[in-house]
C-alpha cells in the first residue's frame, strides 16, 4: 500500500505525497468511518442482532435509539472488537476488522474514543492519570502529557478536578472525565454510550454541545446511543461554528446551513426499524417509534 511509506516515515514531503496520491486519498476520505454489513449476533439462543447493516459516514453523528436491551451497547462493543459477530462484517475506515486479532485491534482502537455508560474510570487512578492513560501507555513525555490533559479537562470544563480521585466525583463529573479520557489523542471516531443518562439538564446539554463541537469543528465521526429525546433534538438541529476569535457558537439549523450531519437508526428486536434523518423519524406513523419519541 502507498501508506506503508507514510507509516514508515519514508515520506519527506507530505504535500508532494498527497498530490501524487490525491485519488487514493480522496477515495479514503469517502470511505465510511464505520460500516456494518449483515451483522448477526446471538447470546445463547437469544438473537440480539439479526442482519444489521448501516454506515456511519465521515464526520457524521449517528444516533442509535431503541429500548433497553435491544443491543445498542452490543453494537458499540462490536465496533471496538470487544465482541465478535456470529456472521457478517464490520469495517472501520474501510478495514474489515471482523477477524482481526488483539494486536491488530489495538491499532484500530488507537483511533477510537469510547465513552462508557457509567464512565468506567479507573478507580485506582486520579483524574489526571485517567485522562493521561493513553499518553502514559505510549510513553509520551510528561510535560506534553500535562499540557494535553489540561487541554482536555478544559474542554469538558473540569480542570479544577485534576487531582481528585474518581470516587470523589459526582456521576456527571465522572462521565465528563470519561469523555476527556476518550478524546485524548484526537481519535477520529468517538462512541458515546448513553453519556447523559442520569444527569441534570444543563450538564446533559454540555455533553451534547461537546458532541456537536466534535462533529462540526473536529470533523469526528461518532455514534451516540441515548434514551433522552432532547439529546436528539439538540444534536440534530444545532451546529457549531467558530468565530474569528476562535470562540464556539451554536446555531439552529436553518438558512445558513441546510443539513446538520446527523442521522438516526432505531433498533427493535434485533432489526433496524428506522434509518434516516430526524424529521422523517418524527413524522413516522409507526406506533413503536411514536411511543419511543413521546413516551406514549
Amino acid at each position, binding site marked *: 500500500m502507498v501508506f506503508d511509506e507514510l507509516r514508515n516515515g519514508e515520506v519527506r514531503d507530505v504535500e508532494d505525497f498527497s498530490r501524487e496520491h490525491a485519488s487514493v486519498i480522496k477515495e479514503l476520505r469517502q470511505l465510511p468511518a464505520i460500516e456494518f454489513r449483515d451483522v448477526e449476533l446471538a447470546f445463547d439462543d437469544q438473537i440480539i442482532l439479526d442482519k444489521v447493516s448501516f454506515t456511519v459516514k465521515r464526520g457524521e453523528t449517528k444516533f442509535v435509539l431503541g429500548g433497553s436491551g435491544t443491543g445498542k451497547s452490543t453494537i458499540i462493543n462490536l465496533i471496538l472488537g470487544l465482541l465478535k459477530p456470529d456472521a457478517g462484517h464490520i469495517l472501520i475506515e474501510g478495514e474489515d476488522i471482523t477477524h482481526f486479532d488483539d494486536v491488530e485491534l489495538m491499532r484500530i482502537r488507537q483511533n477510537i474514543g469510547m465513552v*462508557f*455508560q*457509567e464512565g468506567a474510570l*479507573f478507580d485506582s487512578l486520579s483524574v489526571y492519570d485517567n485522562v493521561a492513560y493513553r499518553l502514559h501507555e505510549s510513553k509520551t513525555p510528561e510535560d506534553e502529557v500535562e499540557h494535553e490533559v489540561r487541554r482536555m479537562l478544559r474542554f469538558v470544563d473540569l480542570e479544577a478536578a485534576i487531582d481528585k480521585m474518581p470516587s470523589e466525583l459526582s456521576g456527571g463529573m465522572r462521565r465528563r472525565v470519561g469523555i476527556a479520557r476518550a478524546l485524548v489523542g484526537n481519535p477520529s471516531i468517538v462512541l458515546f454510550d448513553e453519556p447523559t443518562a442520569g444527569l441534570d439538564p444543563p450538564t446533559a446539554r454540555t455533553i451534547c454541545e461537546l458532541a456537536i463541537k466534535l462533529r462540526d469543528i473536529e470533523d469526528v465521526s461518532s455514534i451516540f446511543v441515548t434514551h433522552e429525546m432532547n439529546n436528539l433534538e439538540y444534536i440534530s438541529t444545532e451546529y457549531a461554528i467558530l468565530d474569528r476569535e476562535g470562540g464556539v457558537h451554536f446555531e439552529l439549523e436553518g438558512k445558513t446551513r441546510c443539513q446538520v450531519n446527523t442521522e438516526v437508526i432505531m433498533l427493535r428486536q434485533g432489526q433496524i426499524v428506522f434509518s434516516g434523518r430526524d424529521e422523517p423519524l418524527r413524522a413516522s406513523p409507526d406506533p413503536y417509534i411514536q411511543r419511543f419519541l413521546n413516551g406514549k
Partner: protein
Amino acid sequence: MNLITQFLFELQAITNLLWRSIKGLAKKPRYFSDIIVQMDQIGVGSLGIVVLTGFFTGGVLILQAYPTLAYYGAQSNAGQGVATALIRELGPVLSALMVAGRVGSAIAAELGSMVVSQQIAAMRALGTSPVRKLVTPRLIAMLICLPLLTIAADLFGLIGGGIVANQLYGLDTNTYVASVRTGTDINALLTGIIKPIFFGLLIALISCEKGLTTTGGTAGVGVSTTQAVVLSSICVIISDFFLSKLLQSALESTLF
C-alpha cells in the same frame, strides 16, 4: 456439569492465562512499576500475617512434640523435627494458604469489580491488554514474594520453636540450634523454595482468572472472590502432596 469436565475447563482457562501472561512479558510495554506496586501489596502487605503464622506454628510444634520426644529421651532432636516439618511442609503450605486468603481474594475482588464496572472493557478500548497490564505484574510479584514470605515464615517458626523449647521446657539454646542445623539439609531447602514458587503460580493464576471472568454484577464479585480463595487453597493442599512426592524422588535420586 460433572466435576471432571469442570476441572478440565478450569485447567484450560488457567493454562491459557499463563500462556498469555508469559507472552505479555515478552512484548513491550512492560509494566515494571506495576510489578513493584504489586510486590509491595503482596509481599510487604502479607509479611505480618505470614510471620505470625510461622512463629506460632513453630511454637506449637515444639509444644506438642517435646513431651513425646522427652519420653524417648530424644529431646535434643527437637530442633531437627521442627526444621524438617516447617521448611519442607508447613512453611510453604501455611504461607501459601494465608496468601491465598489475603491476596487471592483481593486480586479476584479487584479484577472482578473492574470487570463489573467496565474498567476492563475501558482498558481494552484504550488499547491496553488487561492480561499484560494486570495479570503479568501480579503473577511476577507473586512468584517473587511467596518464596521470600515462606523463608520469613520458616525463620520465625524456628525462632518460635526455640523460644517455646527454651522457656517452657528449659532446652538449651545451643542444643536447639545445632539440632535445627541437622534438619536443614539442601534437600529440605530446595523443597522449601520450589514449592512456594509453584503455589504462587497457582494462586496468582486462579485468582486472576476468577476475577477476570466475573459475571453478574456486584454479587458476582463476591462469588468469584470466594471461588478464588477456595479453589486456590484446595489446589495448594492437593498439589502439595504430589509436589512433595515428585521432589522427594527427584532430589533424593539425583542430588544426594
